[in-house]
């Protein structure tokens, strides 16, 4: 047995990692997973970098930020696997929701309509009460931040000039919303459901409606550790892949809920965790092609697309977190490692994408694609504003961003 120490945050999207341990998938591959709960992404990043953790449940931009030199440690990280797609939502206070609803009708699955309603409220506040809305995210280098900014900008709301984005620990967000300190936030589950269940907020839209079939958390590890432990990484990817299959099986939703709810994991009641897993969080709305709110497995949800790392990079550039040049683009390109994923899973005869990159927004609906083994369905993978991201045209894409 190989012992691996894994850092995780108490979030619903740690499901694959927790299931790998609890349902024995790690053990079947000869791995004992020691799970350590963390309380900040800064700690997760630093403790992974110095080797307290072998692997980590990480924000998808975290390995990028580390490799681009934006973090304290000069340690290269890689992501050989994504830990599912979707799973975030944008929650707003009851009063903001009401104001938005009075401007225009929208449903959580229609990000453009929700954003349009928000723009009308922001414009009114600008001219009337001169109030700036505050939105919270969990970390500057998070998909939450980049997607929130992308959504706002795409709806005609400047993410710096028109509203203020602050960083708050997720466990404080619902209280801050109730107290009127913030007007909304973008966060992973269960923190949206918690605001809804306490009656202090409502979900305006969800990640899967902003950028369909996109990654949220990834499996991160040190690049040199992965190189020295190739066989272990192969076994780990296999274990997590099997765990993702188990998590995606509707018959296991209740069991998964109870695992996540445990005091040593999320320490929440199961009924707070369930809406994200059953999809009832969408409140009756349905996403394009019936996409799940949080997808642990289907549509290659665990495949680390380089094009997705590169889109995140385009938004890091847009936010002013990093300057764009060809060497930075190459660093990001090399941070996601679909080659490791493919090498680990192809021998099992499972369907793995044959390409490392794709045009994001190229698939408008679920489509069967050419793969290494059996048939695989991908997409839809579009952005809510209909824009297409072709990683080969990065310079044009960045230039077109305001």
């Amino acid at each position, binding site marked *: 047995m190989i012992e691996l120490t894994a850092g995780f945050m108490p979030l619903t999207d740690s499901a694959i990692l927790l299931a790998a341990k609890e349902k024995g998938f790690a053990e079947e591959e000869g791995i004992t997973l020691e799970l350590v709960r963390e*309380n*900040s*992404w*800064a*700690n997760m990043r*630093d*403790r992974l970098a*110095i080797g*307290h953790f072998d692997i980590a449940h990480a924000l998808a931009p975290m390995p990028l930020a580390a490799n681009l*030199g934006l*973090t*304290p*440690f*000069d340690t290269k990280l890689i992501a050989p696997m994504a830990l599912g797609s979707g799973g975030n939502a944008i929650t707003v206070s009851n009063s903001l929701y009401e104001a938005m609803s009075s401007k225009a009708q929208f449903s959580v699955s229609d990000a453009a309509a929700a954003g349009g309603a928000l723009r009308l409220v922001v414009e009114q506040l600008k001219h009337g009460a001169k109030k700036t809305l505050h939105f919270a995210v*969990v*970390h*500057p280098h998070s998909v939450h931040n980049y997607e929130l900014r992308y959504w706002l900008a795409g709806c005609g709301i400047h993410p710096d000039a028109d509203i203020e984005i*602050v*960083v*708050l*620990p997720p*466990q404080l967000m619902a209280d801050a919303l109730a107290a009127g300190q913030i007007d909304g936030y973008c966060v992973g589950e269960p923190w949206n459901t918690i605001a809804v269940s306490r009656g202090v907020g409502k979900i305006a839209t969800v990640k899967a409606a902003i950028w369909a079939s996109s990654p949220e958390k990834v499996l991160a590890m040190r690049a040199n550790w992965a190189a020295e432990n190739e066989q272990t990484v192969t076994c780990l990817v296999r274990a997590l892949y099997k765990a993702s299959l188990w998590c995606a099986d509707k018959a296991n939703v209740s069991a998964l809920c109870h695992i996540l709810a445990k005091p040593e994991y999320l320490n929440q009641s199961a009924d707070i965790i369930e809406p994200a897993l059953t999809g009832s969080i969408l409140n009756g709305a349905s996403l394009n092609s019936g996409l799940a709110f949080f997808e642990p497995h289907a549509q290659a949800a665990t495949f680390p697309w380089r094009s997705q790392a590169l889109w995140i990079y385009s938004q890091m550039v847009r936010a002013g977190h990093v300057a764009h040049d060809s060497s930075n683009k190459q660093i990001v390109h090399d941070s996601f490692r679909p080659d490791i994923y493919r090498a680990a899973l192809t021998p099992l005869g499972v369907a793995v994408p044959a390409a490392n990159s794709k045009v994001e927004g190229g698939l408008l609906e679920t489509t069967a694609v050419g793969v290494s083994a059996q048939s695989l369905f991908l997409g839809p993978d579009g952005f809510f504003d209909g824009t297409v991201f072709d990683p080969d045209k990065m310079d044009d894409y960045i230039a077109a961003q305001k």
Partner: protein
Amino acid sequence: MSGPLPSVLIIDENATRASIIEAGLKLAGHNRVTIIDDMNGIAAKIAALAPDVIVIDIENSNRDMLENAFQLSRAVKRPIAMFVDRSDNETMQAAIDAGVSAYVVDGLRQERVKNILDMAISRFNAFSRLERELEEARGALQGRKIVEQAKHMIMKSRGVDEDAAYKLLRSTAMNQNRKIVEVAESLVMSADLLGAGGGNDD
């Protein structure tokens, strides 16, 4: 020495530990040291203080928020880098191991900052050691109380004196290759479970 020593802000919800670090820094001649142990409105406090060096405990769940606050201050004021020198992995590792992180204004002379960080690390470690020792002392005290209790139970149930009761405990422990306190513990625990309080009369 050229110019004043850097100003230091210590952010630690553990007020005792913070004051131990503060005392260390003052001893080393740092007279501009501020402690914040209340996270209320912290971003504004940091902006007002504009410290050269920030020392923070890594168990603080507000670290992501604070890090962002430092990044924002980079845009409006002076650049802030984390730790002293990205290549000084040894110091950084020692810091994280000790449970401390630091943020430093760019351009400060390295040896000055390193002194502050080294001080914080050693005081953090000293504090953990103290806590551990305190915990052990508490454990020892608890152990003595339990042995005392078990002794009295034996005295009562067997009608023997204190010395004999202790000898009985000790020989039981020796025969079973256990610690006296363990035997005493199981005796007290079983008495509790049986609800006899003072032990059985067998």
